[in-house]
Structures are given as structure tokens and as C-alpha cells.
């Protein structure tokens, strides 16, 4: 995984000061949020469909060995090849060796989150293979030597001026090319088209694999997914092992929910169903017109089995729509990069420690206010807050809680067990917080408590504590 030069908290500090980031995130996510809400409302039976989708995900995972075997058998019967990769390294090595064996010089890629786990671009480039990202957002990220900050809108953190400057520097764009966003898009089309035409290999992700038919479903809006899987002679599909549904009918349910949740569309522009490589149809005496001669499906575990066997298994229901990112108040403030992982936002805060280990990623489960918005918008109702709490608990067990927190909680426990001390403590804090507060809010707390007030205000305690009110209320009742 990516080695981050600075700590999580330093990245958060930087992001909180970045007002341009907040502006960019605000513009993009507010559109995605309202689009999703509208598209879901149009479904007459959206709740029933979400529940059904959740049951499909649970059922598939409980029988994953069976359906993966069926999927692989079908892909192979169709003439495709299946490679089983336990780790990201194994998967990447397979792709690099395949490229070398076939004399591949250039590769086009359509957006794939699992490919980020593999660091495949870096590994191919080291082997002397040219790799070009073709999703516009990913292309911008690649030109900027940056990392995606959102699973469906990778360049969400950049505004048009930054992108224009990038195109001027890297693509020698003229002022005319940069006059409007559609013109910038047209420039990207021209540039990327020549890469498509000469590519020897196309690498894609997989939104869903269908076990009964061996079909790979690939969803894009730009059409780069179609060109990536049609023009080059070799198509490599990188697939997280959990991205599977048993039947085409199950796929239909997922397609409905994915497009609506991700971008508020009824259907994505291109929902591409690939069932094996280019075929000869002997009965008609004619072969198919186009499509790749070779199809390689790389099934990637990379920590997923461990997730499956833990009480975070529910996270594998995720269909990668990004709705939980758009609706997360913490993501909106810190953006995707602060998480430091390819998976950000609420889903990333569970997936990242789940796949790559809690030890290096123990801060991520704390990047949440546990407000529950993620669970509410999740198309398959994943209980993300429960898992964030579970991970925090595991972090404490691993001894990752700072010592002041441990001692502080011990002190609190002791005081709370002694009614006199508890009463005294609450009186003192009542008095202190009210003394420091302006209009009910404290702008700055002293000592280690300032960690809270550095970025937000702390409310003064109420004039009367619950205990005081309880006694008064009870007293007045007896009087009646």
C-alpha cells in the first residue's frame, strides 16, 4: 500500500485548511447527493429492491466458493483464462509477465479500484510498458502524478483551473483548447484516441461477475470501458473476488441500484456485458467483427478472505457506488486524500484496515462522527457505524489508545462509581465550562483539551444537570 510521508492527523490538518478543496467537494457532492435522492425516489419499490440486493449479497458471500468455481468454469468454457491471485503481488506479477510474454508495449486502462491495490501502473511501467488511464478523471490524476480521492470521481478535488494548467503543461494545450470544459474534454478525447488505437492490452476492473453465464459487467459513462475491452487484442479484467452475483436476474438488481446510488442515473450510459473473448461462430461460418482475442480474468483476494471470516464480513456487500462518501460530513471536510488509502470515506475507513490490517490504519475508524448517514444511503444498507466501532474497539485491544485516554477513562470510571465525586465533578465542569463559554460555546479549552477546540467549539454544560432536574421534577410530582 501507499507509504504516506506524513501522518493521518497531519494530512487532516492540511485538508482542513484547504478551502479550495472544500469548495470543490461541496460543488460535486451536493450534485451527487440530490441526483441520488431523486433517482432512488423514482423507483416505486426502492426499499424492497435494496433489501433484496442485500439478501443477494449475503447469499452470494455465504456460497462464494461455489459461485466462484462456477464463474471460473464458465469463463474457461468460453475460452477465457482465469488466474487466482492470493495477493496483490501475485496478481500484478501475472499481468506483467503476460505483457512481457506477448510483447505488449502499451496498455490502456479503464477505471478500476482493485488495480490501485495492485499498483499495476507502477509495476508495468517498471517493466518498460507504457500505461495510459482513459477515464477522464483518472487521466487527470495520472498526468498530475496524483492519487484518486473518490472511488467514482477520482479528480473531485481538482478545479478546472488546476486541470487547465495541467493540460497546458503536459498536453501543450492552447488557450482555445482550454476555453470551456467541453473543449478540454475534446482535447482529452483526441489525445487518448491515439493511445486506444495502438494499445496491445486493455486492463479493466469488473463491476460484477455473473456466475451462471461467466459474464463480466463493466459500467462506464464515458465509453472508455467499451474501447478498452474492444480494441486491444488482450483484455485483462481485474476482479475483487467478492464482486460476484449468481445470475443475470441478480445482476439486474445491482445495475438498477449502482447507477442510481453512484450518480443519480437510471442507467449508466454504458452497461457493458462481456461474455468471453471474441468468438468464431462456426455455424454461421463467420467470426465476430471485433473484440479481444484473449480474455484473462484475474481474481484477487488480497485480504478479502480475512474480511469474510471476521465480523466485518458485511463490508464485502459493498458495490462501490460512493454514496457513503458523498453523504459523509467528515469526508466533506477532509476529502479522500487525508485517508491515505485508495479507499476513502466511510467505506474506506472499514475496507482499508479490513484488507490491509488495522495496525497501520488504526486512525481511519476514528474519522467518523458515527452519524449514520452512510448506512442510510448505502444501497445494500451496510451497517458501517457498527463496524467502525468494532474497529475502534480492536484498536484499543491492540494497545493503540493513547495513555492519557486510558488514564482519563480510568479516572472517570473511578469518579463515576462514587456518587459524591461524580456530583462534585459535574458541578465543577458545569461551572468551569459556563465561565469559559461565550453564547453557550467554548472557543478554546486549556491544555490537552485544546485538541478538541482547535477545529470546533465545545458546548457549555447545561445550567442544570440531569440529576438536578430529575430531583426537581420528581419533587414537584410528589407535591402534586
Amino acid at each position, binding site marked *: 500500500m501507499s507509504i504516506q510521508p506524513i501522518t493521518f492527523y497531519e494530512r487532516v490538518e492540511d485538508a482542513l485548511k484547504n478551502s479550495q478543496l472544500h469548495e470543490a467537494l461541496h460543488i460535486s457532492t451536493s450534485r451527487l447527493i440530490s441526483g441520488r435522492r431523486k433517482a432512488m425516489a423514482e423507483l416505486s419499490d426502492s426499499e424492497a429492491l435494496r433489501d433484496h440486493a442485500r439478501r443477494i449479497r449475503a447469499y452470494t458471500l455465504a456460497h462464494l466458493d461455489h459461485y466462484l468455481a462456477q464463474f471460473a468454469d464458465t469463463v474457461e468454457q468460453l475460452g477465457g483464462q482465469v*488466474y487466482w491471485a492470493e495477493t496483490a503481488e501475485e496478481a500484478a506479477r501475472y499481468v506483467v509477465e503476460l505483457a512481457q510474454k506477448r510483447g505488449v508495449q502499451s496498455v490502456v486502462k479503464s477505471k478500476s479500484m482493485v488495480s490501485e491495490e495492485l499498483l499495476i501502473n507502477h509495476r508495468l511501467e517498471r517493466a518498460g510498458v507504457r500505461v495510459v488511464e482513459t477515464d477522464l478523471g483518472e487521466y487527470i490524476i495520472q498526468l498530475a502524478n496524483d492519487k484518486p480521492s473518490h472511488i467514482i470521481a477520482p479528480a473531485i478535488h481538482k478545479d478546472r483551473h488546476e486541470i487547465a494548467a495541467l493540460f497546458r503543461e503536459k498536453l501543450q494545450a492552447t488557450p482555445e483548447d482550454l476555453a470551456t470544459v467541453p473543449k478540454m474534454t475534446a482535447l482529452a478525447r483526441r489525445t487518448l484516441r491515439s493511445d486506444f488505437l495502438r494499445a496491445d492490452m486493455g486492463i479493466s476492473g469488473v463491476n460484477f461477475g455473473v456466475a451462471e453465464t461467466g459474464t463480466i459487467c463493466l459500467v462506464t459513462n464515458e465509453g472508455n470501458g467499451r474501447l478498452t475491452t474492444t480494441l486491444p487484442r488482450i483484455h485483462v479484467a481485474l476482479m475483487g473476488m467478492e464482486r460476484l452475483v449468481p445470475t443475470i436476474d441478480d445482476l439486474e438488481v445491482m445495475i438498477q441500484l449502482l447507477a442510481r446510488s453512484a450518480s443519480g442515473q437510471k442507467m449508466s450510459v454504458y452497461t457493458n456485458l462481456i461474455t468471453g473473448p471474441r468468438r468464431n461462430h462456426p455455424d454461421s461460418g463467420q467470426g465476430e467483427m471485433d473484440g479481444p482475442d484473449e480474455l484473462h480474468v484475474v481474481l484477487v483476494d488480497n485480504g478479502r478472505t480475512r474480511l469474510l471470516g471476521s465480523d466485518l464480513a458485511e463490508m464485502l456487500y459493498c458495490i462501490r457506488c460512493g454514496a457513503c462518501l458523498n453523504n459523509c460530513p467528515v469526508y466533506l471536510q477532509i476529502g479522500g486524500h487525508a485517508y491515505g488509502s485508495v479507499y476513502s470515506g466511510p467505506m474506506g475507513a472499514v475496507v482499508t484496515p479490513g484488507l490491509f490490517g488495522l495496525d497501520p490504519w488504526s486512525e481511519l475508524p476514528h474519522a467518523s462522527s458515527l452519524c449514520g448517514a452512510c448506512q442510510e444511503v448505502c444501497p445494500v444498507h451496510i451497517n458501517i457505524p457498527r463496524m467502525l466501532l468494532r474497529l475502534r474497539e480492536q484498536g484499543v485491544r491492540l494497545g493503540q489508545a493513547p495513555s492519557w485516554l486510558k488514564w482519563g477513562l480510568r479516572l472517570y470510571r473511578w469518579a463515576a462509581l462514587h456518587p459524591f465525586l461524580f456530583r462534585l465533578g459535574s458541578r465543577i465542569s458545569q461551572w468551569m465550562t459556563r465561565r469559559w463559554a461565550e453564547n453557550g460555546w467554548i472557543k478554546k479549552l486549556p491544555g490537552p483539551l485544546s485538541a478538541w477546540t482547535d477545529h470546533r467549539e465545545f458546548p457549555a454544560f447545561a445550567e442544570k444537570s440531569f440529576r438536578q432536574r430529575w430531583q426537581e421534577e420528581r419533587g414537584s410530582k410528589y407535591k402534586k
Partner: protein
Amino acid sequence: MMSDREKFLNRIRTQINQDFLPEATSEPPAPPSRFRPKMTLSDRIKAFKRELEALSGYVYTPNNKDEILSLILKILHHHQADYILAWEEAYLELSWLPAALQKDGFVIETGYLVDDPFSRQAQLAHLDTIQVGITGARAALSDSGTLVLGHGPGRGRLASSLPPIHIALLTPQKIYPSLSAFLEADPTAVTESSNLVFIAGPSRTADIEMTLSMGVHGPGEVHVIILPH
């Protein structure tokens, strides 16, 4: 020696734990009853047109052969097309169309990709200059303005993905109210060839500041001609 596949599947088998997947059933979950509005043919045509136009697609309902031809010629002239990338006539809903266009001086390519690497490069470079692709349609979905294209011999993927303009010919009886209705009516569509694609409007991106741009990789214009019934 266990194969990679057996090792992979064994690992999964030993890790699957029903306790952590409490909702998982032993049999495939039964789908909920879905609301399927009864729609007449003209309802479906109207809904399809409305939905696709909302996505910036163009929908035409010409009444006869002459209107169809002049419609297509108008689009071709507007884009100063001379070459056309089209499905073979057997797979176009109008088998007379290729001959009629050839008579008007247009050159029609079918886009059968050749094997030889050198010729293929030249072929792709040429196909990439073609402005307009013409295809049939296996079906359409009226609730989302979606075209369904099944590919195979004589019906290439490139005609609807490479040129900047895509014209599709659609028989109105093939307009289904929804994706689920289509899959039920045409169960072999997915497996019959290596590729089936659902196309909802022109290629689009919003990757720069959520500003919509058309035609980033696929066609920026989609014209659907609903044939007279």
C-alpha cells in the same frame, strides 16, 4: 500439489462463517414482486422518446421509407460524412439501406478487424476517421431511454463506440418497459455472443467540476430512428 484454484477456494471455504453473515439463506433469495406497469406500444414509444431526449439523445418517428432515407442523409450531410461504419444489411432493420446509401456515393465499412498486426494498425487508423456509425438494435428500454445492442458476426461493437455520431434503427415492438422485462423476454441475449451493451444516451463525463461534457470517448450524438410499425 493443490492448484492455485483449489488453494484459493479452500481458503474461502474455511473462512465462510454463517455467524458473520446472519442474513444469508441456504437457497437463493426470492425476488420481491416487481411493479410492472402495463404499457401500450405507443406509451412505450412515447416514454422511450421522452427519456432519451432528457439525456440529450435524438429520437425520430418517420412514417415511410422516403422520410427515413432523407433523415439519415440529413445527418450524414450535416457531419460531412463520406464513409460510414455500419452493421451488415442482414442485421440492419432496413436491408435496403446500405445499397441506397452507396447509390448516393457513401462508402460503407463493416469494421471486421483483421488479424495481421500491420494491416490492423492501418485499418484502425482508417476506421477512426469515420464520422458516423449505423447499427440496428436488439431492444430498447422505455423507462430509461436505453438502447440494447447485441453484437456478433456482421454486427460489430465499433460502429457504436468509435465514431462521434451513432445512428440506431429500432423496431418499435422491441421497446420493453424495463430492463427486467427485456431480460425475461429475451433470455439468451447475454450469452448469444461475446458482447451485449446497454446504451443510455451519448457518452458523457462530469469529471471536471461536475460540468457535463458529451462525447468524451464514445459518440457525442445518438440518433434513434423508430421505424414505422
